[in-house]
């Protein structure tokens, strides 16, 4: 169970600051990116995984074709 049920943080939504409940992402820290749904942060972005999408085609062996585009 979340320990601090009322833990709040200010999250910027494209520059607009809102109070968001952070009880379910206890390790979220200032400067990090969180996924917010109806006022509650439900996850943190994994930046390494995010970069993987861009490598996906390359991993499929498409490197030459991509470079030629």
């Amino acid at each position, binding site marked *: 169970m979340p320990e601090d*049920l009322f833990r709040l943080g200010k999250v910027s939504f*494209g520059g607009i600051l809102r109070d968001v409940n952070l009880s379910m992402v206890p390790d979220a820290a200032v400067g990090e990116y969180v*996924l917010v749904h*109806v006022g509650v942060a*439900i996850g943190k972005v994994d*930046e390494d995984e995010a970069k993987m999408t861009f490598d996906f085609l390359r991993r499929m062996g498409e490197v030459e074709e991509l470079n030629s585009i």
Partner: protein
Amino acid sequence: MMKFLHEYRDPQLVRQYVEEIHRLVTRPWTLMEICGGQTHSLVRNGLPDMLPASINLVHGPGCPVCVTSVRVLDEAVWLAHQPDVILCSFGDMLRVPGSRESLLQARAGGADIRILYSPLEAVEIARQYPGKEVVFFAVGFETTAPANALSVIQAARLGVGNYSILSSHVLVPPAMEAILGDPENTIDAFLAAGHVCTIMGMEEYYPIAEKYKTPVIVTGFEPVDLLQGILMAVRQLEIGEYKVENQYARYVQREGNRLAKEAIAEVFVVGDRIWRGIGVIPQSGYEVREEYRAFNARLKFNMDLPVVEENRECISGDIMRGLKKPFQCPNFGTHCRPEHPLGAPMVSSEGSCAAYYHYSSTYKNEGDFIER
């Protein structure tokens, strides 16, 4: 700003994925995206038209507003009309037709109905108005359940006795099973809803993929996410595989969010649920646990409303099971429009009919279709 938003909307990446999908496809395949947010992103960005004609995208039941039954809507309207009740709701529930009236009509008739962004705000309102009963209309899939559960846990912890929820929670995996188990089913692969899996993880999908030999790709919401999910699904289908894969790994871990799942389990218990347009799906919803019965509006107000007939002019059930597209409905854009909907998919921000009505010019209806 959303992290990586620019990259996941990059037109060149979109083109590369589209080309790769064209290269891979040799046969017709039908894919269903579960979530209404995905449907809107697909249609708004014109992705269905970029894909090979043999890829048929059908739009799933992942629109909480759309699947909330008429009976539950009637319960919300009934509650709103009770003296000293403040009914709080997400905005897009208001125009959904009930059997007699919508919440919007109830509000015009004097009911105190407030549109909120978060259930946690409803707990605050309950603290401000100790003489009123504050009820939050808790609709949603697994993604919304942690916030609704948290509102109940907070209210219990703070001793806020005048707060309760009307739970209309629904669950994705039982709906997928209901769709796949239907003899008319045509779905070859699923794009599972990324944010649901941020909470719940991926474990529930392995037995479904195995039992129905159907690939399940946990997929995000941006154009590149969706195309990558489609590509992963097509690749599996073309070689006869049926695995669970994770396209949305930047937000989804296999085990999900443990704390969020614990909060859900603290407040909710799984039970049967009526889905609008589809009917009862066993073990497909969350109801408030006995331990929190004081926060269950159904028990608090002793509600026992009758089950009502649904509007048969609305074919939302066929659409949400992937059997029809919105523009195949004879009422689409004519008798059914956002200003006077026959059913919820036309007014919800996640409804597939609304997506086609607002964004698609490909599927113009005869007559008075208005292109936005």
